[in-house]
């Protein structure tokens, strides 16, 4: 169990990008407005990245695609915990084995620093057993779904069934809307972005699942994102673009629906980190995005 809940939000220090820009900032950067740094006590501020993936991306080697290296990178940037899926869970059929390896890989990093989010595909025979193993055998906090890579739409009855079952097991459900821009995908692996609209009525119907949508910005307009948030989903910032994109998102959605996700190592971690600085969020908003909202998901009332 992490210790994030013990942290006082007033002790949250510095925006994400301060670390990324350390040593590079000009006088202009130093003078630029940024999240106010509350008087710190020197304690390490909480920072939870809900969107990292372990293993090998099939189409190129990535910097930090070895788990110890990725953890080292995240720690160096100030991250204090991360929720990890696995690329094997995207591309393999034997998800039970992929999830077991993921759990073991995370365990090796020690003391819950990496939280494994196993993959479940509700179109595979025996998927309920995968889900049950994630919850019971591996004691995972949640699962990660890749509907477009696994070939189903969110209006599929099996998906609705999965949400209900995940709710019963008190699992967080991460839904990955895409992994990369469809314009730059490998020609042999063309995968569309997810249609997230069917998720809205399912959430409104109350499945009991806590849902986090990752990499959603190419799949959903801001109005749809707002509907998803109002229906109870949280959304990450990995693919949010436009200048000041996080600030715009917070204005559209309730701040308690936005979580920090980097999509590392497929994306440079610094992308999500610098977005916080670009948006010049208040310390409290920044803390909510970086840690508070993820902590709330882990400890539902």
């Amino acid at each position, binding site marked *: 169990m992490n210790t994030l809940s013990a942290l006082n939000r007033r002790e949250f220090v510095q925006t994400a990008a301060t670390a990324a820009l350390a040593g590079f900032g000009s006088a*202009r950067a130093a003078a630029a407005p940024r999240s106010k740094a509350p008087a710190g006590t020197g304690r390490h501020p909480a920072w939870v990245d809900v969107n990292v993936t372990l293993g090998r991306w099939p189409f190129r080697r*990535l910097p930090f695609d070895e788990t110890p290296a990725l953890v080292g990178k995240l720690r160096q940037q100030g991250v204090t915990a991360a929720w990890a899926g696995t690329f094997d869970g995207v591309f393999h059929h034997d998800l039970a084995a992929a999830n077991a390896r993921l759990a073991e890989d995370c365990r090796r990093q020690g003391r819950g620093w990496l939280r494994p989010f196993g993959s479940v595909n509700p179109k595979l025979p025996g998927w309920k057993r995968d889900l049950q193993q994630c919850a019971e055998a591996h004691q995972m906090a949640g699962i990660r779904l890749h509907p477009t890579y696994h070939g189903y739409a969110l209006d599929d009855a099996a998906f609705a069934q999965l949400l209900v079952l995940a709710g019963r097991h008190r699992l967080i459900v991460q839904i990955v809307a895409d992994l990369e821009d469809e314009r*730059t995908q490998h020609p042999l692996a*063309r995968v569309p972005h997810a249609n997230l609209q069917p998720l809205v009525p399912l959430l409104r119907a109350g499945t009991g699942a806590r849902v986090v949508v990752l990499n959603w910005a190419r799949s959903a307009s801001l109005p749809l994102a707002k509907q998803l948030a109002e229906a109870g989903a949280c959304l990450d910032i990995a693919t*949010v673009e436009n200048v000041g994109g996080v600030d715009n998102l917070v204005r559209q959605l309730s701040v308690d629906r936005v979580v920090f996700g980097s999509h590392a190592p497929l994306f440079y971690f610094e992308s999500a980190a610098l*977005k916080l600085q670009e948006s010049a969020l208040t310390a409290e908003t920044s803390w909510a995005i970086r840690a508070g909202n993820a902590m709330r998901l882990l400890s539902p009332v």
Partner: protein
Amino acid sequence: MTIWDAHIHLSGVPGDAPEARLERLLEYADRLGIERVCVFMGMKWSYAPSPDDLRQQNDEVWRAIRHFPERAFGFVYLNPNHLAASLAELDRCVRDGPMVGVKLWVARRCHEPVLDPLVRRAAELKAVVLQHTYLKATGNLPGESTPTDLAQLAARHPDASFIAAHTGADWELGIRALRDTPNVSVELCGFDPTAGVTEMAVREVGAARVLYGSDAGGRSFASQLAKVLGAQISAADKQLILRDNLKRLLTPILQTKGIRI
């Protein structure tokens, strides 16, 4: 480190006037320590702008940069399908005006000979030519250039300086296509912050031919800056990419115009 952004637009931010939009964009740039920006294309875009449209868009950029002479460089937007009008715009905005580069987008694939007079004139004026390049798995627009197209154009004009905007976006292919064309710099903007792009660019073409750009405001300054700040390359190479290379490309025309930097 000092940062110059090779690629922004008057988009993604509110504002009825071009200078209001640029002011807003510079506020965001300030937060990330970006000192100067290159801006091109107006407040309303079109794939194949008419001569009147070109003039209006260039006027908007001109108006915007006039308010921020210490922060913003302008590039003139041209359409090779309107050659005479584009040559006139080049003279109006670069020879006789404050702009220092050329922007070519998706009106015509750039390997075609119709571009040659524009490039010759740009080279005479020492203006760098920034050409959009993309390789879309979903299919390019009819007039959309690929990195290979730009390599062909650049090979015909060894005395001209080119920037491959987006490096094809499918950058593993784009970098390869441009590797052996020394008068083309590869620019990192306008596609996802996919890890490894900058490392490959530095490895294949050398850090002196890699440029930071953002494509703001449609893109975030942050996501694109991360491609450099997050890359596993030396601090010296980062400085080249973040400012020094662009400064070197612009120095001849800035000196000609008497612009001190």
